[in-house]
């Protein structure tokens, strides 16, 4: 996409105002879509507080001004709180209670007034000095949980100072025209303040596919590229920016040639999207009538709407860990119950597979205060964590079982590698059911229990596991990583991570056979399920269900509807003889080209 770099170098032969040079950065594509727009750079951190002496005679006026600023800030915060409660629910709004209490803090108010009077200092500088002391003493605390809370105090500090300095906080912190929001990082309270109609895309230095901004962007259908590291320093408000949420590319100050290229790309993307959305009402069925369940992977309750809009037949994987990670403390039973119930009710009777906490690996919640592990992916994660922290596990299971009274719930356990683990997990589920019965809660007696197949040992023992559970879901990302012994994040060996490696196909086949013999429902929920080259193979294997990101559902459906089951089985037989990934991919690519019409470029979605 960025091969125009040499062109703009020879611009302006007449010495006219030199256009800013184009540059491109690659980040993590967190939400799909392409957009061209004007940057709005949100620089929340910088705020300078002028120190100006106040005449002794005017000191009381300054104290009065300070009181007024606190009242104005409180009004602003209450409006924001009400707005967020309406848009996102009371839970999200509760963070503002602490902010409001800070504004009423007598020590803060009295000490600030005392500094204004004794030092004849302007209110903004006096307030900054006093609240700065509190921030310093909280920041000095060793305990990580307590320390992190300085962000809230900082937030109040900035708001009050902006009011005192007469700079409109809203004008400076959110766009008024449709813009591409560029920021170092965005907190939930930041994004909650944006009017959705004025945000064309999110672009941030921090964050990844599972950060709050990514989840929000996907649920709102706004493109997002995150993890750009140090883009914010290099972009100015008003710069033209292209955001390609499909590839993770961000182009700043594009040349006319680059713009044309992306306009074309946008047109193609919109056309494809529209074509795909027309499929929503049709079943995921091959030309010869073999039907598949096509479900969605979910990270947050707000994404339910997107699942239904894209024609999802259920939730094949609700990853509960992101709710845990986004909280400041361990969520209790009631809080969890509300979230699970929201998803279950939103899906209105369609199946919802709730996966129990898969904390560990790269997913860490700070409040669980775990000491770092040398090899976290092979460490204390998933079911291993839950079986040792039975308190956390049981609280979650209680919340899930209670939510089962409101729809069609299934429970799935992650990271199973030993039979004992599944036996123990089932035993704890039975305990929880007994306790709920005793406590007189309603729940569904027939909640199915299932497990992830994501360790090679689970595949090797799939026939044994099949006796213990109602369903399997193959987590291809971890299964491939553990089988090939490859860390995808390591660029030296990332190429060894291959969906279609012959060894992976064999493991899949073993799992399918074990599942079929015991009539265990089999789903694929890893990235492979949304990879265009892999879909025909998965069809040929005869899995029962695909579970993919909501926005990928239509594309997978189109693949399924373009082929016959028999052709896919024949394709699978052909590629099973190959010894290398290259041969396998070559064979499938030819198949896809001849069966799936136009637009789709193999490899585009899955990578």
């Amino acid at each position, binding site marked *: 996409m960025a091969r125009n770099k040499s062109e703009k170098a020879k611009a302006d032969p007449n010495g006219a105002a030199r256009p800013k040079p184009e540059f491109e950065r690659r980040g993590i594509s967190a939400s799909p879509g392409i957009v061209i727009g004007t940057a709005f750079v949100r620089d929340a951190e910088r705020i300078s507080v002028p120190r100006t002496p106040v005449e002794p005679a005017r000191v009381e006026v300054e104290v009065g001004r300070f009181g007024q600023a606190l009242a104005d800030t409180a009004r602003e915060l209450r409006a924001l709180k009400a707005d967020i409660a309406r848009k996102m629910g009371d839970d999200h709004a509760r963070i503002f209670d602490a902010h409001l209490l800070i504004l009423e*803090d*007598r020590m803060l108010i009295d000490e600030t007034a005392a500094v204004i009077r004794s030092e004849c200092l302007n209110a903004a500088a006096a307030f900054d000095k006093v609240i700065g002391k*509190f921030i310093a003493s909280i920041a000095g605390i060793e305990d990580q949980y*307590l320390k992190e809370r300085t962000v809230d105090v900082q937030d109040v500090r900035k708001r009050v100072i902006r009011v005192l300095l007469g700079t409109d906080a809203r004008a400076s912190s959110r766009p008024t025209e449709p813009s591409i929001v560029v920021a170092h990082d965005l907190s939930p309270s930041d994004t909650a303040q944006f009017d959705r109609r004025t945000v064309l895309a999110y672009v941030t230095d921090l964050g990844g596919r599972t950060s709050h901004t990514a989840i929000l962007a996907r649920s709102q259908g706004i493109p997002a590229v995150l993890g750009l590291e140090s883009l914010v320093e290099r972009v100015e408000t008003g710069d033209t920016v292209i955001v390609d949420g499909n590839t993770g590319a961000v182009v700043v100050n594009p040349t006319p040639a680059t713009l044309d290229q992306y306009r074309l790309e946008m047109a193609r993307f919109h056309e494809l999207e529209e074509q795909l959305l027309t499929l929503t009402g049709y079943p995921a069925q091959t030309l010869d009538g073999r039907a598949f369940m096509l479900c969605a992977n979910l990270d947050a309750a707000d994404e339910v709407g997107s699942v239904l809009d894209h024609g999802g037949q259920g939730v094949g994987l609700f990853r509960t860990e992101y709710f845990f990670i986004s909280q400041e403390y361990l969520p209790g039973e009631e809080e969890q119950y509300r979230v699970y119930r929201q998803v279950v009710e939103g899906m209105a009777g369609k199946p919802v597979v709730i996966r129990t906490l898969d904390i560990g690996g790269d997913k860490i919640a700070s409040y669980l205060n775990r000491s770092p592990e040398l090899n976290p992916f092979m460490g204390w994660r998933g079911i291993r964590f839950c079986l040792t922290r039975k308190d956390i596990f049981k609280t979650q299971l209680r919340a899930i079982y209670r939510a089962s009274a409101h729809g069609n719930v299934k429970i799935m356990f992650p990271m199973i590698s030993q039979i004992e683990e599944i036996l123990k997990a089932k035993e704890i589920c039975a305990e929880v059911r007994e306790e709920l019965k005793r406590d007189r809660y309603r729940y569904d007696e027939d909640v199915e229990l299932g497990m992830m197949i994501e360790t090679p040992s689970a595949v090797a023992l799939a026939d044994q596991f099949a006796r213990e559970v109602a369903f399997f879901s193959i987590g291809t990302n971890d299964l491939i990583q553990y089988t090939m012994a490859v860390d995808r994040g390591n660029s030296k060996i990332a190429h060894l991570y291959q969906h279609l490696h012959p060894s992976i196909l064999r493991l899949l086949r073993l799992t399918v056979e074990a599942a079929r013999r015991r009539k265990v429902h089999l789903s694929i929920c890893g990235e492979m399920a949304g990879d265009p080259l892999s879909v025909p193979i998965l069809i040929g294997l005869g899995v029962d269900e695909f579970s993919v990101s909501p926005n990928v559902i239509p594309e997978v459906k189109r693949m399924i509807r373009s082929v016959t089951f028999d052709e896919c089985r024949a394709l699978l037989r052909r590629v099973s003889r190959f010894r290398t990934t290259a041969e396998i991919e070559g064979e499938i690519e030819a198949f896809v080209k001849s069966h799936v019409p136009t637009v789709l470029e193999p490899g585009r979605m899955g990578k």
Partner: protein
Amino acid sequence: MIEFTKNVGNKIGLHLRAAGEFVKIAAQFSSDIRVYHGEKFANGKSILGLASLAAAKGARVRVEIEGPDEAAAQKALEALFDAKFYED
């Protein structure tokens, strides 16, 4: 004057939100309320003061209450500690 001593029982200690719950109750009483943790103490009606105490999970804090409604204030605040600040 009356006083009581309690352990901070919620998992993440007396952070801003927990301090807020304390202040909300303390503010309902006219008595003076002081919270001691180690060498430090704070006004029980100041959320920032309480948050600066660095009372992590398991910390032992002493609460002194003095005023006309001290008995009622003690009862309400003890209940808050027992309920682990409504968090777990």
